[in-house]
Protein backbone atom coordinates (compact mmCIF):
# COMPACT_ATOMS: atom_id res chain seq x y z
CA UNK A 1 0.00 0.00 0.00
CA UNK A 2 1.23 3.46 -0.78
CA UNK A 3 1.23 5.51 2.30
CA UNK A 4 -0.30 8.87 1.81
CA UNK A 5 1.31 10.93 4.50
CA UNK A 6 -0.40 14.08 3.49
CA UNK A 7 -3.14 15.52 5.54
CA UNK A 8 -3.89 17.84 2.71
CA UNK A 9 -5.21 15.03 0.58
CA UNK A 10 -7.09 13.39 3.36
CA UNK A 11 -10.52 13.44 1.84
CA UNK A 12 -11.72 14.61 -1.45
CA UNK A 13 -15.19 15.67 -0.69
CA UNK A 14 -15.92 19.28 -1.33
CA UNK A 15 -16.73 21.29 1.75
CA UNK A 16 -20.41 21.24 1.02
CA UNK A 17 -20.75 17.62 0.01
CA UNK A 18 -21.50 16.43 3.47
CA UNK A 19 -24.01 19.14 4.08
CA UNK A 20 -25.65 18.47 0.74
CA UNK A 21 -25.87 14.82 1.67
CA UNK A 22 -27.34 15.89 4.97
CA UNK A 23 -30.15 17.80 3.29
CA UNK A 24 -30.99 14.74 1.28
CA UNK A 25 -30.92 12.39 4.27
CA UNK A 26 -32.81 14.72 6.55
CA UNK A 27 -35.44 15.27 3.91
CA UNK A 28 -35.71 18.93 4.76
CA UNK A 29 -33.74 21.90 5.99
CA UNK A 30 -31.22 21.40 8.76
CA UNK A 31 -32.99 22.28 11.99
CA UNK A 32 -32.95 20.93 15.51
CA UNK A 33 -36.14 19.08 14.65
CA UNK A 34 -34.98 17.41 11.46
CA UNK A 35 -31.64 16.55 13.01
CA UNK A 36 -33.28 15.15 16.11
CA UNK A 37 -35.63 13.09 14.01
CA UNK A 38 -32.73 11.68 12.05
CA UNK A 39 -30.22 11.16 14.86
CA UNK A 40 -32.71 9.67 17.25
CA UNK A 41 -33.93 7.33 14.53
CA UNK A 42 -30.54 5.67 14.36
CA UNK A 43 -30.58 2.29 16.10
CA UNK A 44 -29.35 2.38 19.68
CA UNK A 45 -26.14 0.87 20.91
CA UNK A 46 -26.10 -1.94 23.44
CA UNK A 47 -23.15 -1.10 25.64
CA UNK A 48 -22.51 -4.66 26.75
CA UNK A 49 -22.49 -6.02 23.23
CA UNK A 50 -20.31 -3.22 21.93
CA UNK A 51 -17.76 -3.72 24.67
CA UNK A 52 -17.77 -7.46 24.15
CA UNK A 53 -17.11 -7.06 20.45
CA UNK A 54 -14.23 -4.69 21.21
CA UNK A 55 -12.87 -7.16 23.74
CA UNK A 56 -13.11 -9.89 21.12
CA UNK A 57 -11.17 -7.82 18.61
CA UNK A 58 -8.60 -7.15 21.30
CA UNK A 59 -7.79 -10.86 21.48
CA UNK A 60 -6.35 -10.89 17.97
CA UNK A 61 -2.76 -11.96 18.23
CA UNK A 62 -0.39 -10.40 15.73
CA UNK A 63 2.92 -12.20 15.59
CA UNK A 64 6.17 -12.10 13.59
CA UNK A 65 5.72 -10.54 10.16
CA UNK A 66 2.22 -9.32 10.98
CA UNK A 67 3.46 -7.60 14.10
CA UNK A 68 6.35 -5.96 12.25
CA UNK A 69 3.97 -4.70 9.61
CA UNK A 70 1.55 -3.45 12.21
CA UNK A 71 4.23 -1.60 14.18
CA UNK A 72 5.37 0.30 11.09
CA UNK A 73 1.78 1.03 10.21
CA UNK A 74 1.15 2.43 13.67
CA UNK A 75 4.01 4.89 13.27
CA UNK A 76 2.72 5.98 9.87
CA UNK A 77 -0.68 6.69 11.41
CA UNK A 78 0.46 8.68 14.43
CA UNK A 79 -0.40 12.33 14.94
CA UNK A 80 2.55 13.06 17.22
CA UNK A 81 1.07 15.41 19.71
CA UNK A 82 2.06 18.03 22.24
CA UNK A 83 -0.77 20.02 23.76
CA UNK A 84 0.53 21.50 26.97
CA UNK A 85 0.10 24.94 28.38
CA UNK A 86 3.88 24.91 28.79
CA UNK A 87 4.59 24.21 25.11
CA UNK A 88 7.28 26.42 23.62
CA UNK A 89 8.79 26.79 20.16
CA UNK A 90 11.71 24.73 21.42
CA UNK A 91 9.45 21.97 22.54
CA UNK A 92 7.69 21.95 19.16
CA UNK A 93 10.99 21.85 17.26
CA UNK A 94 12.02 18.87 19.34
CA UNK A 95 8.72 17.15 18.57
CA UNK A 96 9.16 17.83 14.86
CA UNK A 97 12.66 16.38 14.92
CA UNK A 98 11.27 13.25 16.51
CA UNK A 99 8.54 13.12 13.88
CA UNK A 100 11.09 13.29 11.08
CA UNK A 101 13.52 10.83 12.62
CA UNK A 102 11.68 8.67 15.13
CA UNK A 103 14.59 6.27 15.58
CA UNK A 104 18.03 7.64 14.77
CA UNK A 105 19.44 4.12 15.09
CA UNK A 106 17.26 2.78 12.31
CA UNK A 107 16.93 4.54 8.96
CA UNK A 108 14.19 2.12 7.88
CA UNK A 109 11.88 3.51 10.51
CA UNK A 110 8.88 5.24 8.89
CA UNK A 111 7.80 8.77 9.73
CA UNK A 112 4.66 9.77 11.53
CA UNK A 113 1.67 11.22 9.68
CA UNK A 114 1.51 14.57 11.38
CA UNK A 115 2.49 16.64 14.33
CA UNK A 116 -0.37 18.06 16.33
CA UNK A 117 0.12 21.35 18.18
CA UNK A 118 -1.76 24.37 19.43
CA UNK A 119 -2.61 26.87 16.67
CA UNK A 120 -0.17 29.52 17.82
CA UNK A 121 2.66 27.05 17.35
CA UNK A 122 1.60 25.83 13.91
CA UNK A 123 3.96 28.22 12.19
CA UNK A 124 6.83 26.94 14.31
CA UNK A 125 6.03 23.39 13.30
CA UNK A 126 5.78 24.30 9.61
CA UNK A 127 9.12 26.06 9.81
CA UNK A 128 10.77 23.20 11.69
CA UNK A 129 9.54 20.64 9.21
CA UNK A 130 11.01 22.56 6.31
CA UNK A 131 11.22 20.26 3.30
CA UNK A 132 9.47 17.53 5.25
CA UNK A 133 6.29 19.57 5.54
CA UNK A 134 3.65 17.75 3.55
CA UNK A 135 2.90 20.35 0.86
CA UNK A 136 6.61 20.84 0.05
CA UNK A 137 7.33 17.14 0.25
CA UNK A 138 4.49 16.37 -2.11
CA UNK A 139 5.75 18.93 -4.55
CA UNK A 140 9.04 17.06 -4.42
CA UNK A 141 7.26 13.79 -5.06
CA UNK A 142 7.46 12.29 -1.60
CA UNK A 143 5.01 12.10 1.22
CA UNK A 144 5.67 14.28 4.18
CA UNK A 145 4.47 15.24 7.59
CA UNK A 146 1.40 17.36 8.04
CA UNK A 147 0.85 19.98 10.66
CA UNK A 148 -2.35 19.61 12.59
CA UNK A 149 -3.53 22.41 14.82
CA UNK A 150 -6.16 22.18 17.48
CA UNK A 151 -8.52 25.12 17.34
CA UNK A 152 -11.99 26.43 18.28
CA UNK A 153 -11.06 27.20 21.87
CA UNK A 154 -9.62 23.73 22.39
CA UNK A 155 -10.18 21.80 24.57
CA UNK A 156 -13.38 23.18 26.14
CA UNK A 157 -14.82 24.90 23.09
CA UNK A 158 -16.31 27.50 25.34
CA UNK A 159 -15.95 30.67 23.29
CA UNK A 160 -18.06 32.59 20.84
CA UNK A 161 -18.29 31.32 17.28
CA UNK A 162 -16.41 34.41 16.11
CA UNK A 163 -13.51 33.64 18.42
CA UNK A 164 -13.51 30.00 17.35
CA UNK A 165 -13.46 30.92 13.68
CA UNK A 166 -10.67 33.41 14.25
CA UNK A 167 -8.76 30.68 16.04
CA UNK A 168 -9.20 28.43 13.01
CA UNK A 169 -8.33 31.14 10.51
CA UNK A 170 -5.15 31.95 12.41
CA UNK A 171 -4.01 28.35 12.36
CA UNK A 172 -4.84 27.90 8.71
CA UNK A 173 -3.00 31.09 7.85
CA UNK A 174 -0.02 29.84 9.84
CA UNK A 175 0.18 26.84 7.56
CA UNK A 176 -1.80 24.18 9.42
CA UNK A 177 -2.83 21.41 7.04
CA UNK A 178 -5.38 19.97 9.39
CA UNK A 179 -7.65 21.53 11.96
CA UNK A 180 -8.75 19.52 14.98
CA UNK A 181 -11.86 21.31 16.21
CA UNK A 182 -14.00 20.48 19.22
CA UNK A 183 -17.76 20.37 19.09
CA UNK A 184 -19.84 22.34 21.54
CA UNK A 185 -20.71 19.52 23.91
CA UNK A 186 -23.01 21.76 25.88
CA UNK A 187 -25.05 22.50 22.77
CA UNK A 188 -25.13 18.80 21.86
CA UNK A 189 -26.20 17.66 25.30
CA UNK A 190 -28.98 20.25 25.45
CA UNK A 191 -30.28 19.13 22.07
CA UNK A 192 -29.14 22.12 20.03
CA UNK A 193 -28.03 19.89 17.20
CA UNK A 194 -28.44 22.58 14.57
CA UNK A 195 -25.98 24.81 16.38
CA UNK A 196 -23.40 22.04 16.50
CA UNK A 197 -24.01 21.27 12.83
CA UNK A 198 -23.73 24.88 11.73
CA UNK A 199 -20.60 25.41 13.78
CA UNK A 200 -18.90 22.50 12.09
CA UNK A 201 -19.92 23.87 8.69
CA UNK A 202 -18.64 27.30 9.58
CA UNK A 203 -15.32 25.89 10.73
CA UNK A 204 -15.15 23.86 7.55
CA UNK A 205 -15.54 27.11 5.62
CA UNK A 206 -12.82 28.70 7.70
CA UNK A 207 -10.52 25.86 6.68
CA UNK A 208 -10.58 27.04 3.08
CA UNK A 209 -7.39 28.39 1.65
CA UNK A 210 -7.06 30.66 -1.36
CA UNK A 211 -4.84 28.10 -3.10
CA UNK A 212 -7.56 25.45 -2.85
CA UNK A 213 -5.40 23.27 -0.59
CA UNK A 214 -7.97 23.45 2.14
CA UNK A 215 -7.07 22.39 5.63
CA UNK A 216 -8.81 19.21 6.52
CA UNK A 217 -11.18 19.05 9.35
CA UNK A 218 -11.12 16.64 12.23
CA UNK A 219 -14.10 16.99 14.50
CA UNK A 220 -13.44 16.10 18.12
CA UNK A 221 -16.56 14.78 19.82
CA UNK A 222 -15.01 14.58 23.29
CA UNK A 223 -16.81 11.33 23.94
CA UNK A 224 -15.73 11.39 27.57
CA UNK A 225 -18.13 14.29 28.07
CA UNK A 226 -20.90 12.84 25.91
CA UNK A 227 -20.60 9.78 28.16
CA UNK A 228 -23.02 7.40 26.48
CA UNK A 229 -22.49 5.35 23.37
CA UNK A 230 -25.81 6.52 21.99
CA UNK A 231 -24.63 10.11 22.31
CA UNK A 232 -21.30 9.29 20.71
CA UNK A 233 -23.06 7.57 17.85
CA UNK A 234 -25.39 10.47 17.24
CA UNK A 235 -22.59 13.01 17.52
CA UNK A 236 -20.57 10.97 15.03
CA UNK A 237 -23.42 11.03 12.54
CA UNK A 238 -23.98 14.72 13.16
CA UNK A 239 -20.33 15.52 12.47
CA UNK A 240 -20.27 13.39 9.34
CA UNK A 241 -23.49 14.97 8.09
CA UNK A 242 -21.98 18.40 8.62
CA UNK A 243 -18.96 17.57 6.50
CA UNK A 244 -16.23 16.33 8.85
CA UNK A 245 -13.25 14.77 7.08
CA UNK A 246 -12.43 12.90 10.28
CA UNK A 247 -14.25 12.20 13.49
CA UNK A 248 -12.02 12.15 16.51
CA UNK A 249 -12.74 10.73 19.93
CA UNK A 250 -11.18 13.07 22.41
CA UNK A 251 -9.07 16.01 23.33
CA UNK A 252 -7.01 13.95 25.72
CA UNK A 253 -7.91 16.48 28.39
CA UNK A 254 -10.72 14.67 30.17
CA UNK A 255 -10.71 11.49 32.20
CA UNK A 256 -12.13 9.14 29.57
CA UNK A 257 -10.59 9.17 26.14
CA UNK A 258 -10.19 6.83 23.23
CA UNK A 259 -11.46 3.50 24.48
CA UNK A 260 -11.54 0.66 22.00
CA UNK A 261 -15.35 0.37 22.14
CA UNK A 262 -15.68 4.08 21.29
CA UNK A 263 -13.30 3.75 18.38
CA UNK A 264 -15.18 0.69 17.20
CA UNK A 265 -18.46 2.57 17.40
CA UNK A 266 -17.10 5.46 15.34
CA UNK A 267 -15.69 3.06 12.78
CA UNK A 268 -19.13 1.51 12.44
CA UNK A 269 -20.51 4.96 11.69
CA UNK A 270 -18.00 5.71 8.94
CA UNK A 271 -18.48 2.23 7.53
CA UNK A 272 -22.24 2.81 7.38
CA UNK A 273 -21.77 6.28 5.90
CA UNK A 274 -19.62 4.75 3.19
CA UNK A 275 -22.30 2.15 2.46
CA UNK A 276 -24.86 4.92 2.27
CA UNK A 277 -22.99 7.51 0.23
CA UNK A 278 -19.80 6.00 -1.08
CA UNK A 279 -17.87 8.69 0.79
CA UNK A 280 -15.00 7.86 3.12
CA UNK A 281 -14.61 9.63 6.42
CA UNK A 282 -11.63 9.11 8.71
CA UNK A 283 -11.48 8.19 12.37
CA UNK A 284 -8.97 9.37 14.94
CA UNK A 285 -8.80 7.91 18.41
CA UNK A 286 -6.75 10.21 20.61
CA UNK A 287 -5.76 10.13 24.23
CA UNK A 288 -4.96 7.07 26.25
CA UNK A 289 -3.32 4.98 23.55
CA UNK A 290 0.12 4.54 25.02
CA UNK A 291 1.28 1.04 24.14
CA UNK A 292 1.96 -0.82 20.93
CA UNK A 293 -0.54 -3.42 22.03
CA UNK A 294 -3.31 -0.82 22.34
CA UNK A 295 -2.38 0.69 19.00
CA UNK A 296 -2.35 -2.68 17.23
CA UNK A 297 -5.76 -3.46 18.70
CA UNK A 298 -6.96 -0.25 17.13
CA UNK A 299 -5.55 -1.29 13.77
CA UNK A 300 -7.23 -4.68 13.98
CA UNK A 301 -10.49 -2.95 14.84
CA UNK A 302 -10.16 -0.68 11.82
CA UNK A 303 -9.34 -3.51 9.43
CA UNK A 304 -12.12 -5.80 10.64
CA UNK A 305 -14.77 -3.09 10.88
CA UNK A 306 -14.34 -0.41 8.21
CA UNK A 307 -11.93 -2.47 6.15
CA UNK A 308 -8.25 -2.58 5.47
CA UNK A 309 -8.45 0.38 3.09
CA UNK A 310 -9.05 2.59 6.13
CA UNK A 311 -5.56 1.77 7.39
CA UNK A 312 -3.93 4.79 5.79
CA UNK A 313 -3.23 8.28 7.05
CA UNK A 314 -6.02 9.78 5.02
CA UNK A 315 -8.58 7.68 6.89
CA UNK A 316 -7.11 6.71 10.23
CA UNK A 317 -4.90 8.44 12.74
CA UNK A 318 -3.88 7.83 16.28
CA UNK A 319 -3.38 10.92 18.36
CA UNK A 320 -0.59 10.13 20.80
CA UNK A 321 2.65 11.24 22.34
CA UNK A 322 4.22 8.49 24.43
CA UNK A 323 2.98 5.73 22.10
CA UNK A 324 5.71 6.35 19.56
CA UNK A 325 8.53 5.38 21.87
CA UNK A 326 6.82 2.20 22.94
CA UNK A 327 6.46 1.23 19.28
CA UNK A 328 10.13 2.04 18.72
CA UNK A 329 11.14 -0.22 21.60
CA UNK A 330 9.09 -3.01 20.07
CA UNK A 331 10.68 -2.43 16.67
CA UNK A 332 14.12 -2.58 18.20
CA UNK A 333 13.25 -5.82 19.92
CA UNK A 334 12.04 -7.26 16.65
CA UNK A 335 15.20 -6.10 14.85
CA UNK A 336 17.76 -7.16 17.43
CA UNK A 337 16.02 -10.08 19.07
CA UNK A 338 16.48 -8.72 22.57
CA UNK A 339 14.53 -6.31 24.71
CA UNK A 340 15.50 -2.66 24.47
CA UNK A 341 15.39 0.03 27.13
CA UNK A 342 14.14 3.56 27.59
CA UNK A 343 17.60 5.02 27.15
CA UNK A 344 17.78 3.63 23.63
CA UNK A 345 14.91 5.73 22.29
CA UNK A 346 14.96 9.50 22.24
CA UNK A 347 12.72 11.73 24.29
CA UNK A 348 11.11 14.46 22.27
Amino acid at each position, binding site marked *: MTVDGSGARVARRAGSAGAGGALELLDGPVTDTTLRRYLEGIPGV*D*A*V*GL*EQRAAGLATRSLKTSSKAMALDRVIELIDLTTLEGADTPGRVRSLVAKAITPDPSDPTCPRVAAVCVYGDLAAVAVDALGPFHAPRARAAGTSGIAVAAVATAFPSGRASLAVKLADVADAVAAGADEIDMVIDRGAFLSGRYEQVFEEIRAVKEACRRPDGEDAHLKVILEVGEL*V*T*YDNARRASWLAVLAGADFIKTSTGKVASNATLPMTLLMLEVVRDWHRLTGEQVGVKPAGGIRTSKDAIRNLVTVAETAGEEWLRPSLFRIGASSLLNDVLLQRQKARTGHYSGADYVTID
Partner: protein
Amino acid sequence: MTRLAVPKTYKLYIGGKFPRSESGRTYEITGAGGDFLANAAQASRKDARDAVVAARSALKGWSAATAYNRGQVLYRIAELLEGRRAQFVDELVRSEGLTERRAAAVIDTAIDRWVWFAGWADKFAQVLGNGNPVAGPYFNLSVPEPTGVVAVIAPQAGEGHSLTGFVSAVAPALVSGNTVVVVASRSAPLSAISLSEVLATSDVPPGVVNVLTGSPAEIAPWLASHADVNAIDLVGAGALDWVQLQIDAAETLKRVLQPEDGPGAPAPTLARISAFTETKTVWHTKGLL
Protein backbone atom coordinates in the same frame (compact mmCIF):
# COMPACT_ATOMS: atom_id res chain seq x y z
CA MET B 1 -96.30 -40.92 49.78
CA THR B 2 -92.63 -40.59 49.03
CA ARG B 3 -91.57 -38.49 46.14
CA LEU B 4 -90.05 -40.29 43.16
CA ALA B 5 -86.39 -39.19 42.93
CA VAL B 6 -84.89 -37.70 39.78
CA PRO B 7 -81.60 -39.52 39.13
CA LYS B 8 -78.71 -37.59 37.65
CA THR B 9 -77.05 -38.42 34.35
CA TYR B 10 -73.29 -38.37 34.82
CA LYS B 11 -71.47 -37.13 31.76
CA LEU B 12 -67.97 -36.13 30.71
CA TYR B 13 -66.65 -32.60 31.25
CA ILE B 14 -64.79 -31.29 28.20
CA GLY B 15 -64.16 -27.66 27.26
CA GLY B 16 -66.65 -26.42 29.83
CA LYS B 17 -69.46 -28.58 28.46
CA PHE B 18 -70.92 -31.87 29.60
CA PRO B 19 -71.05 -34.14 26.59
CA ARG B 20 -71.84 -37.83 26.52
CA SER B 21 -69.08 -40.00 25.16
CA GLU B 22 -68.91 -39.64 21.39
CA SER B 23 -68.89 -43.44 21.38
CA GLY B 24 -72.31 -43.51 23.03
CA ARG B 25 -70.95 -45.93 25.61
CA THR B 26 -71.80 -45.90 29.28
CA TYR B 27 -70.86 -48.16 32.14
CA GLU B 28 -72.55 -49.00 35.35
CA ILE B 29 -71.43 -47.44 38.60
CA THR B 30 -72.20 -49.48 41.62
CA GLY B 31 -72.01 -48.62 45.26
CA ALA B 32 -69.73 -50.25 47.78
CA GLY B 33 -72.39 -52.89 48.30
CA GLY B 34 -72.77 -53.62 44.61
CA ASP B 35 -76.00 -51.63 44.26
CA PHE B 36 -76.60 -49.66 41.07
CA LEU B 37 -75.84 -45.99 41.47
CA ALA B 38 -75.72 -44.54 37.99
CA ASN B 39 -74.56 -44.95 34.47
CA ALA B 40 -71.39 -43.02 33.70
CA ALA B 41 -70.06 -42.11 30.30
CA GLN B 42 -67.31 -44.43 29.13
CA ALA B 43 -64.90 -42.10 27.40
CA SER B 44 -63.25 -43.17 24.17
CA ARG B 45 -59.91 -42.19 22.61
CA LYS B 46 -61.76 -39.56 20.63
CA ASP B 47 -63.13 -38.04 23.82
CA ALA B 48 -59.56 -37.98 25.09
CA ARG B 49 -58.50 -36.27 21.88
CA ASP B 50 -61.26 -33.67 22.25
CA ALA B 51 -60.28 -33.09 25.85
CA VAL B 52 -56.66 -32.44 24.82
CA VAL B 53 -57.82 -29.97 22.19
CA ALA B 54 -59.91 -28.18 24.80
CA ALA B 55 -57.04 -28.14 27.28
CA ARG B 56 -54.66 -26.80 24.64
CA SER B 57 -56.99 -23.97 23.68
CA ALA B 58 -57.52 -22.99 27.28
CA LEU B 59 -53.80 -22.99 28.06
CA LYS B 60 -52.95 -19.56 26.71
CA GLY B 61 -55.58 -17.74 28.72
CA TRP B 62 -55.11 -19.68 31.95
CA SER B 63 -51.33 -19.50 31.94
CA ALA B 64 -51.43 -15.80 31.08
CA ALA B 65 -53.88 -14.97 33.86
CA THR B 66 -52.23 -13.17 36.71
CA ALA B 67 -51.13 -15.37 39.57
CA TYR B 68 -53.41 -13.37 41.85
CA ASN B 69 -56.33 -14.15 39.58
CA ARG B 70 -55.54 -17.87 39.42
CA GLY B 71 -55.34 -17.93 43.18
CA GLN B 72 -58.77 -16.33 43.49
CA VAL B 73 -60.29 -18.69 40.94
CA LEU B 74 -58.94 -21.72 42.82
CA TYR B 75 -60.12 -20.31 46.13
CA ARG B 76 -63.57 -19.79 44.65
CA ILE B 77 -63.76 -23.54 44.04
CA ALA B 78 -63.33 -24.09 47.76
CA GLU B 79 -66.08 -21.59 48.49
CA LEU B 80 -68.51 -23.33 46.17
CA LEU B 81 -67.63 -26.78 47.50
CA GLU B 82 -68.31 -25.62 51.00
CA GLY B 83 -71.88 -24.84 49.98
CA ARG B 84 -72.35 -28.26 48.43
CA ARG B 85 -70.78 -30.37 51.16
CA ALA B 86 -73.97 -32.38 51.61
CA GLN B 87 -74.05 -33.55 48.03
CA PHE B 88 -70.41 -34.68 48.15
CA VAL B 89 -70.89 -36.43 51.47
CA ASP B 90 -73.85 -38.23 50.01
CA GLU B 91 -71.94 -39.34 46.93
CA LEU B 92 -68.92 -40.45 48.93
CA VAL B 93 -71.12 -42.48 51.21
CA ARG B 94 -72.85 -44.08 48.28
CA SER B 95 -69.90 -44.70 46.00
CA GLU B 96 -66.97 -45.26 48.35
CA GLY B 97 -69.09 -46.72 51.12
CA LEU B 98 -67.79 -44.32 53.75
CA THR B 99 -69.60 -43.42 56.90
CA GLU B 100 -71.06 -39.97 56.87
CA ARG B 101 -68.52 -38.81 59.41
CA ARG B 102 -65.59 -40.04 57.35
CA ALA B 103 -67.11 -38.72 54.15
CA ALA B 104 -67.42 -35.32 55.83
CA ALA B 105 -63.73 -35.50 56.74
CA VAL B 106 -62.87 -36.26 53.11
CA ILE B 107 -64.76 -33.29 51.72
CA ASP B 108 -63.25 -31.07 54.42
CA THR B 109 -59.80 -32.18 53.35
CA ALA B 110 -60.62 -31.63 49.69
CA ILE B 111 -61.85 -28.11 50.38
CA ASP B 112 -58.81 -27.32 52.48
CA ARG B 113 -56.53 -28.59 49.72
CA TRP B 114 -58.05 -26.14 47.26
CA VAL B 115 -57.49 -23.38 49.75
CA TRP B 116 -53.89 -24.47 50.33
CA PHE B 117 -53.07 -24.70 46.64
CA ALA B 118 -54.94 -21.47 45.85
CA GLY B 119 -52.59 -19.69 48.20
CA TRP B 120 -49.57 -20.98 46.33
CA ALA B 121 -50.56 -19.45 43.00
CA ASP B 122 -48.82 -16.14 43.61
CA LYS B 123 -46.01 -17.54 45.74
CA PHE B 124 -44.55 -20.65 44.14
CA ALA B 125 -42.65 -18.56 41.59
CA GLN B 126 -41.01 -16.64 44.40
CA VAL B 127 -39.99 -19.82 46.15
CA LEU B 128 -38.91 -21.80 43.08
CA GLY B 129 -37.53 -18.91 41.03
CA ASN B 130 -34.68 -16.57 41.75
CA GLY B 131 -32.39 -13.90 40.48
CA ASN B 132 -29.00 -15.31 39.55
CA PRO B 133 -25.74 -13.52 40.35
CA VAL B 134 -23.97 -14.24 37.06
CA ALA B 135 -20.43 -13.05 36.48
CA GLY B 136 -21.17 -10.30 34.00
CA PRO B 137 -23.26 -7.23 33.25
CA TYR B 138 -26.57 -9.08 33.02
CA PHE B 139 -29.93 -9.06 34.63
CA ASN B 140 -30.64 -12.78 35.03
CA LEU B 141 -33.88 -14.15 36.38
CA SER B 142 -35.23 -17.68 36.62
CA VAL B 143 -38.96 -18.22 36.88
CA PRO B 144 -41.02 -21.41 36.79
CA GLU B 145 -43.64 -21.52 34.06
CA PRO B 146 -46.38 -24.05 33.40
CA THR B 147 -45.37 -27.10 31.40
CA GLY B 148 -48.54 -27.02 29.29
CA VAL B 149 -51.20 -29.66 28.92
CA VAL B 150 -50.99 -32.20 31.75
CA ALA B 151 -52.74 -35.56 31.62
CA VAL B 152 -53.60 -37.03 35.00
CA ILE B 153 -54.58 -40.57 35.82
CA ALA B 154 -56.37 -39.81 39.08
CA PRO B 155 -56.05 -42.09 42.11
CA GLN B 156 -58.15 -45.21 41.73
CA ALA B 157 -58.27 -46.56 45.26
CA GLY B 158 -58.09 -45.65 48.93
CA GLU B 159 -60.46 -43.83 51.21
CA GLY B 160 -61.48 -40.52 49.73
CA HIS B 161 -59.47 -41.16 46.58
CA SER B 162 -62.35 -40.22 44.32
CA LEU B 163 -62.44 -36.69 45.69
CA THR B 164 -59.40 -35.76 47.78
CA GLY B 165 -57.04 -37.84 45.64
CA PHE B 166 -58.53 -36.28 42.55
CA VAL B 167 -58.20 -32.76 43.88
CA SER B 168 -54.68 -33.35 45.17
CA ALA B 169 -53.56 -34.45 41.72
CA VAL B 170 -55.38 -31.78 39.72
CA ALA B 171 -54.97 -28.66 41.85
CA PRO B 172 -51.14 -28.50 41.90
CA ALA B 173 -51.02 -28.69 38.12
CA LEU B 174 -53.47 -25.80 37.88
CA VAL B 175 -51.58 -23.56 40.30
CA SER B 176 -48.85 -22.64 37.83
CA GLY B 177 -51.22 -22.32 34.87
CA ASN B 178 -51.24 -25.77 33.31
CA THR B 179 -54.47 -27.13 31.90
CA VAL B 180 -55.50 -30.66 32.71
CA VAL B 181 -57.10 -33.72 31.19
CA VAL B 182 -57.88 -36.04 34.06
CA VAL B 183 -59.10 -39.59 34.01
CA ALA B 184 -61.28 -39.98 37.11
CA SER B 185 -61.61 -42.96 39.40
CA ARG B 186 -63.10 -45.76 37.36
CA SER B 187 -65.00 -47.27 40.23
CA ALA B 188 -66.12 -44.04 41.89
CA PRO B 189 -66.39 -41.24 39.35
CA LEU B 190 -69.39 -39.49 40.88
CA SER B 191 -67.44 -36.99 42.97
CA ALA B 192 -65.29 -36.08 39.99
CA ILE B 193 -68.33 -35.34 37.85
CA SER B 194 -70.00 -33.37 40.58
CA LEU B 195 -66.80 -31.45 41.09
CA SER B 196 -66.85 -30.71 37.37
CA GLU B 197 -70.27 -29.18 37.83
CA VAL B 198 -68.80 -26.99 40.53
CA LEU B 199 -65.94 -26.02 38.24
CA ALA B 200 -68.38 -25.21 35.45
CA THR B 201 -70.23 -22.77 37.66
CA SER B 202 -67.10 -21.36 39.25
CA ASP B 203 -64.67 -18.98 37.58
CA VAL B 204 -62.48 -21.72 36.13
CA PRO B 205 -62.41 -21.04 32.38
CA PRO B 206 -63.75 -23.77 30.10
CA GLY B 207 -61.10 -26.28 29.06
CA VAL B 208 -58.79 -25.66 32.01
CA VAL B 209 -59.99 -28.89 33.62
CA ASN B 210 -61.37 -31.69 31.51
CA VAL B 211 -62.69 -34.82 33.17
CA LEU B 212 -62.97 -38.19 31.53
CA THR B 213 -64.70 -41.17 33.09
CA GLY B 214 -64.40 -44.74 31.95
CA SER B 215 -61.50 -47.11 31.70
CA PRO B 216 -58.08 -45.68 32.56
CA ALA B 217 -56.54 -48.72 30.92
CA GLU B 218 -58.25 -47.81 27.68
CA ILE B 219 -57.72 -44.04 27.75
CA ALA B 220 -54.31 -43.65 29.37
CA PRO B 221 -52.27 -45.02 26.42
CA TRP B 222 -53.84 -42.44 24.11
CA LEU B 223 -52.92 -39.66 26.49
CA ALA B 224 -49.42 -41.01 27.14
CA SER B 225 -48.69 -41.12 23.43
CA HIS B 226 -50.51 -37.90 22.47
CA ALA B 227 -47.93 -35.48 21.02
CA ASP B 228 -49.85 -32.45 22.24
CA VAL B 229 -49.74 -33.56 25.85
CA ASN B 230 -46.68 -32.16 27.63
CA ALA B 231 -46.74 -34.14 30.85
CA ILE B 232 -48.48 -37.08 32.42
CA ASP B 233 -49.12 -37.75 36.07
CA LEU B 234 -49.44 -41.49 36.57
CA VAL B 235 -50.29 -41.14 40.24
CA GLY B 236 -53.30 -43.44 39.93
CA ALA B 237 -51.91 -45.72 37.23
CA GLY B 238 -50.29 -48.23 39.57
CA ALA B 239 -52.63 -51.01 38.51
CA LEU B 240 -52.14 -50.31 34.83
CA ASP B 241 -49.20 -51.22 32.63
CA TRP B 242 -47.69 -47.93 33.67
CA VAL B 243 -44.20 -48.85 32.56
CA GLN B 244 -45.50 -49.02 29.02
CA LEU B 245 -47.25 -45.69 29.56
CA GLN B 246 -43.95 -44.17 30.63
CA ILE B 247 -42.29 -45.66 27.58
CA ASP B 248 -45.01 -44.20 25.36
CA ALA B 249 -44.57 -40.84 27.03
CA ALA B 250 -40.85 -40.89 26.16
CA GLU B 251 -41.64 -40.47 22.47
CA THR B 252 -42.19 -36.73 22.94
CA LEU B 253 -40.16 -36.47 26.15
CA LYS B 254 -43.17 -35.86 28.37
CA ARG B 255 -42.58 -35.08 31.98
CA VAL B 256 -43.79 -38.10 33.97
CA LEU B 257 -44.72 -38.65 37.58
CA GLN B 258 -44.77 -42.30 38.51
CA PRO B 259 -47.64 -44.07 40.36
CA GLU B 260 -48.09 -43.56 44.06
CA ASP B 261 -50.12 -45.66 46.34
CA GLY B 262 -51.01 -45.70 49.95
CA PRO B 263 -53.81 -43.84 51.63
CA GLY B 264 -53.84 -40.13 51.06
CA ALA B 265 -51.81 -40.24 47.86
CA PRO B 266 -50.85 -37.87 46.53
CA ALA B 267 -49.77 -35.68 49.40
CA PRO B 268 -50.10 -31.94 48.92
CA THR B 269 -46.58 -30.68 48.29
CA LEU B 270 -44.80 -27.86 46.58
CA ALA B 271 -42.90 -30.57 44.69
CA ARG B 272 -46.16 -31.47 42.92
CA ILE B 273 -46.48 -27.89 41.75
CA SER B 274 -42.89 -27.71 40.59
CA ALA B 275 -43.07 -31.10 38.85
CA PHE B 276 -45.14 -29.55 36.07
CA THR B 277 -43.25 -26.33 35.68
CA GLU B 278 -40.38 -25.38 33.42
CA THR B 279 -37.75 -23.01 34.66
CA LYS B 280 -37.23 -20.21 32.20
CA THR B 281 -34.12 -18.12 32.63
CA VAL B 282 -34.02 -14.71 31.00
CA TRP B 283 -30.80 -12.82 30.50
CA HIS B 284 -30.71 -9.14 29.65
CA THR B 285 -27.73 -6.91 29.22
CA LYS B 286 -27.20 -4.11 31.73
CA GLY B 287 -25.39 -1.08 30.40
CA LEU B 288 -25.28 2.46 31.69
CA LEU B 289 -23.55 3.83 28.62
